[in-house]
């Protein structure tokens, strides 16, 4: 009889875990997204060389960008919002016209975190047709100012007047 009781107890012990065991199941589901490269030009300031007086002989140069802009001068800038590196394609020079009269200015570009001040020096400042890419630390940068300065050469006998022109820049996001 003791053996029967012992066997029954053993059987109960064996059966008990399966009765108390809770069934479970699990699985996983993927989550995904693609963040696009974003590149927009939000605002701009014109490049203004100010007032220049034509010499009686030879030529004079007016520079904007090598130093903080002087009286009547402004450094050109484009405010760029972006989340990736980008490249810039622009002209090396610009022709300013006033009616039938014209004169030429070379253009120098650079990148800055602010719209004002002198063009950055070194590798980030160059002729606008040879500007290095804007490289950023991904996930940290949202605004860059593309600065545009230049050197205007005014020759002897240059007709008086207000001269103007425009330069187009193409910015291209670089895929990471």
């Amino acid at each position, binding site marked *: 009889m003791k053996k029967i009781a012992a*066997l*029954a107890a053993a059987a109960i012990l064996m059966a008990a875990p399966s009765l108390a065991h809770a069934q479970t199941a699990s*699985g996983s589901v993927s*989550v995904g*997204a693609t963040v696009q490269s974003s590149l927009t030009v939000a605002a701009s300031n014109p490049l203004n060389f100010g007032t220049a007086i034509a010499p009686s002989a030879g030529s004079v140069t007016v520079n904007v960008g090598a130093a903080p802009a002087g009286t009547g001068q402004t450094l050109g800038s484009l405010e760029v919002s972006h989340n990736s590196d980008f490249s810039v394609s622009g002209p090396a020079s610009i022709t300013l016209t006033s009616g039938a009269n014209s004169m030429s200015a070379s253009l120098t570009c650079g990148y800055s975190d602010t719209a004002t001040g002198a063009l950055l020096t070194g590798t980030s400042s160059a002729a606008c047709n040879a500007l290095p890419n804007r490289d950023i630390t*991904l996930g940290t940068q*949202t605004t860059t100012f593309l600065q545009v300065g230049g050197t205007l050469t005014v020759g002897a006998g240059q007709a008086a007047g207000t001269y103007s022109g425009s330069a187009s820049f193409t910015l291209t996001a670089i895929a990471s």
Partner: protein
Amino acid sequence: MRVLRAAVLTLGLLALVAAPRHAHSQSLAVYSVKGLQFGSLLPGVDAAVSPVNTPGRAEVEIVGQGRIAITIELPASMSSPRGHQLPLAFGPQDGVLFLKVSSRSVTFDPRQPLEATLPAGNQQGSAAILYLGGTAKPARDQAPGEYASSVSVRIANVAT
């Protein structure tokens, strides 16, 4: 010999007692049908995927019957291969459990465990489908590229 017979009889009785409990607990299973896809995102622009009739919602089939508890482990963010994080958010309307037999849908908060009763009578196929939505919240300076993560779904029988 009498002892052996008695033992066999005892085991048989135990089996009879245990058998009905086993018959109630059909095997549970979870099958991922479709992941949660937010698609193409713009930096600084939140993107919400509803669990109701939207192509991006996640879909999970649940097999089983009886009272079950559903627990969902939700990620706080997705990661890019370079290690950038894209925050995720889940709200009280982002979970839907569709019970196939009754064609009834239950909206629930996927951040909280959910208990539901899966009806009998659908032994071969899934008893319910779990739909999951959510919101991706890319920052203004969110680095471009692919982001991924995963959601874990766990179900368990609940003693009644």
